[in-house]
């Protein structure tokens, strides 16, 4: 009997329908866009303590109504030893040997591979093929290498180029994560299968994000599972963005090339654009993604109102319309968890804090908190308002404050 099911009957009922096909790194033929409902769970230890992989696995797998076996994933932050945490950790799915060799050549032309190796995986009997091979490279881009020398880019921009370049041009290769001191473990299967496949119990991390998927009409696809990650950003997303066509234009206008065909990919790039490139505080970026109504903005104090109106004008293409709740993680400058829901709060999101105040939680369902800590304090945020917790700083926003609290000094 499999984990998460009380009896065999229940398990059998779920397996009754014909299965959608499954794909590894290679994009499923004809697929143009993916959507669906989901479960999300994240936890962070703000004192920098380590959270075992079994904790996040319990949190996610308990929400079993929220998945149908077509994708799940985890991202871990603050998991690597000192000697590797300052190198970019680039993890890839490869469908075959040729794609791995091509990607390695691509990397070597643009920087130095400090260490490489396959990511440990276990064969889980209930999972079905294909099983793409998973590789990890600790990598330093060389902005002065021949491929970059004319462009005068920062190392981060080199990494973005490499990720979009490999995803877009090498068939059968897909970069899964590319940040420092973080890694993504995801694939096609139930949340408990993916946790077992990657043997998450072997990892300890300061922060975990996770996602299980209930797609409505698309096949399983290892590379398309969440979290979706670029640089140290990773995003888990439960929702359907009705403004996708608009948001997509904004990131494309800013040079991002979409390769994963999910609205989550666009959300990830929006965070990168607004926070890393435009240097906006996270609560300002969150307001751009889920702005308040003009009727609310009119009641703000003057400087908040001016900022709010300007955000709505300037970033109207960043506005994510439709239902969503998202978990956003980053490792630089410090490991941070950002969790927010859309401005109508059409998808669930609940926050929690451990009894000793060291751990924070952001989850789709309260059960995901209670399963690991019965006594935790929980609360809900306001629509569109982010909860932000950071290692070293603790809880920076509860998600119930005024939108720009902390922005003006």
């Amino acid at each position, binding site marked *: 009997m499999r984990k998460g099911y009380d009896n065999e009957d229940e398990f059998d009922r779920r397996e009754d329908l014909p299965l959608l096909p499954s794909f590894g790194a290679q994009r499923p033929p*004809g*697929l*143009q*866009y*993916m*959507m*669906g*409902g989901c479960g999300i769970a994240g936890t962070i230890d703000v004192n920098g303590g380590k959270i075992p992989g079994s904790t996040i696995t319990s949190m996610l797998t308990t929400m079993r109504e929220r998945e149908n076996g077509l994708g799940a994933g985890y991202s871990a932050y603050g998991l690597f030893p000192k000697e590797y945490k300052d190198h970019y950790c680039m993890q890839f799915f490869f469908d075959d040997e040729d794609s791995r060799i091509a990607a390695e050549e691509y990397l070597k032309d643009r920087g130095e591979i400090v260490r490489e190796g396959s990511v440990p995986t276990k064969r889980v009997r209930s999972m079905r093929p294909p099983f793409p091979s998973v590789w990890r490279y600790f990598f330093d881009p060389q902005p002065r290498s021949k491929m970059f020398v004319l462009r005068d880019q920062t190392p981060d921009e080199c990494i973005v180029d490499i990720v979009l370049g490999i995803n877009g041009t090498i068939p059968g290769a897909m970069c899964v994560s590319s940040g420092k001191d973080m890694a993504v473990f995801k694939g096609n299967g139930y949340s408990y299968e993916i946790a077992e496949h990657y043997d998450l119990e072997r990892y300890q991390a300061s922060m975990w994000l996770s996602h299980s998927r209930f797609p*409505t*009409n*698309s096949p399983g696809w290892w590379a398309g599972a969440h979290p979706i990650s670029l640089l140290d950003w990773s995003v888990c997303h439960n*929702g*359907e963005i*009705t*403004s*996708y*066509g*608009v948001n997509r*234009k*904004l990131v*494309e*206008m*800013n*040079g991002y090339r979409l390769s994963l*065909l999910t609205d989550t990919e666009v959300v990830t790039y929006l965070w990168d654009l607004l926070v890393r490139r*435009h*240097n*906006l*505080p996270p609560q*300002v970026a969150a307001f751009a993604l889920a702005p308040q*109504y*003009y*009727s609310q903005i009119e009641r703000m104090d003057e*400087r908040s109102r*001016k*900022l709010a109106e*300007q*955000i*709505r*004008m*300037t*970033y*109207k*293409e960043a*506005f994510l*319309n*439709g*239902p969503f709740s998202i978990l956003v993680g980053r490792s630089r400058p410090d490991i941070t968890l950002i969790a927010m829901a859309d*401005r*109508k709060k*059409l998808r669930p999101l609940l926050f929690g804090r451990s009894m000793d105040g060291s751990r924070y939680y952001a989850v789709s369902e309260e059960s995901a908190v209670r399963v690991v800590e019965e006594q935790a304090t929980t609360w809900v945020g306001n629509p569109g308002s982010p909860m932000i917790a950071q290692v070293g700083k603790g809880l920076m926003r509860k998600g119930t404050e005024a939108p*720009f609290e902390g*922005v*003006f*000094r």
Partner: protein
Amino acid sequence: MSGGDQTAKRKDPESIYRNVIHEKFKPSIDRNLCIKCKRCVKECSFGALEWDDDGIRYKGNCVACQRCVATCPAKAIDIVHLPTQYPPHASYTERVRQAITAQATSGGVLLSSCGTDMPYGMIFDDLILDSAQVTNPSIDPLREEVETRTYVGRRTGKITLSSDGYITGSEVTNPIVAMEMPLMIGHISLGAVSYNTQLALLQAAKNLHILAGSGEGGLHSDFFPFAENVISEVASGRFGVTADYLQRTAAVEIKIGQGAKPGVGGHLPGEKVTELISSSRRIPLGTDALSPYPHHDIYSIEDLQQLIAALKESTEHRVPVGVKIAAVHNVGAIASGVVRAGADFITLDGFRGGTGSSPRVIRDHAGLPIEVATAVVDKRLTAEGLRNRITLIAGGSIRSSADMIKVIALGADVASVCTSALIAMGCQVCQSCHRGVCAWGITTQRPDLVSRLDPAIGAARVTRLYTAWNEELKEVLGAMGIDAVESLVGNRDRLRYFGPNPKIAEVMGVKHVGEGWG
């Protein structure tokens, strides 16, 4: 026996040719109902009816404007559409033969008005909207907010914040105008329409918190109080462009072209240049007001850049300065150049757009449908990374809220409308505006006709019409699971093509019906 001229001499030898231009319509008056009040004779400004001792007699020249029908107290009149009397021919249609006959008689350029009536087919009618089901909830606009506020002006694409939270970039100084719906009343000049008509349109714009175009005829000083709702047009004739004009406006628009007559200047027949028009346009009484075809200070893109800069300086950078271009085949590249030349907004005018007077050959045969032009410009500006810098306004044949919604989804921030506003005030689209005798008092300067339109009633009707459209917009947005109109702009994913020519869909970047997301 003898050669030479064998022509039979008649008094009016060409009348026979004129006589084969048949009447298209005929008022049919029910003698049993007619109370012989002669009201219809007075109401018909085209002189089609006369009193003939014992009854009303039809003289000819009916344009089917319905004025006599609407005003007959006895409801005794119907307009009958007369069948063609020509021998049938699929290529030499009645329209073709009449045009040839008319030109052989007059030797002149045929004029017409309103948008083209050629049966090109509307691409809008081949587009189907998406709706939300299951995976995303639809939104009920009666119970939840659905926002339709729209801004017109230039944007920076980026906010720069200081460490203490203040905006430091030029985004705070760029002039921008807010409207409460993504719709504006297009440019209809005083001259093309009457004083009362323009007053009604401006009052409606004020009621609706939207903008209305001045047209190229300047702005009458009585209308200065509407400054916050006016986009002032600077056209090639520069009619009425004064310091006052540029000070009392919410935005300035350089008119390069008009959809109904791309490449052709404005044309106001001398019959309509009364004292009022002469003073507001600053031209002699009774002369044709013919705008030069190009601006004679704009022969290339850098000249346009200079005029934009000059107008921004003259308005002290208080208002956005935009450029209106007719939709033509290379519109994408032209629009890109216009953005780079510094325009804060671009107005695209499609080839079915209205006109008060235009050479018929241009109206019917030149330009590009607004649906295609909007999508092509949106795609081009996006590809060049410029789309989030400007406001895109699209007009020319937007007939309904559905058209407005579709043109927004195709890529426009704002839909510009004219003909529907005039229809709301009585226009029946008889396409005789250029004759200056509009029986509904709209496109005329004759005082007795002008007085037929009560500006307060006109304003109320236009206000109601567009309020209803905005409510319909909210209904559709809600059904799509979208609660603010900006999330529909250029969202072509939410449209599908259901027409005869999938190539059009491909050019517009719209999927075919039956194609899902993935």
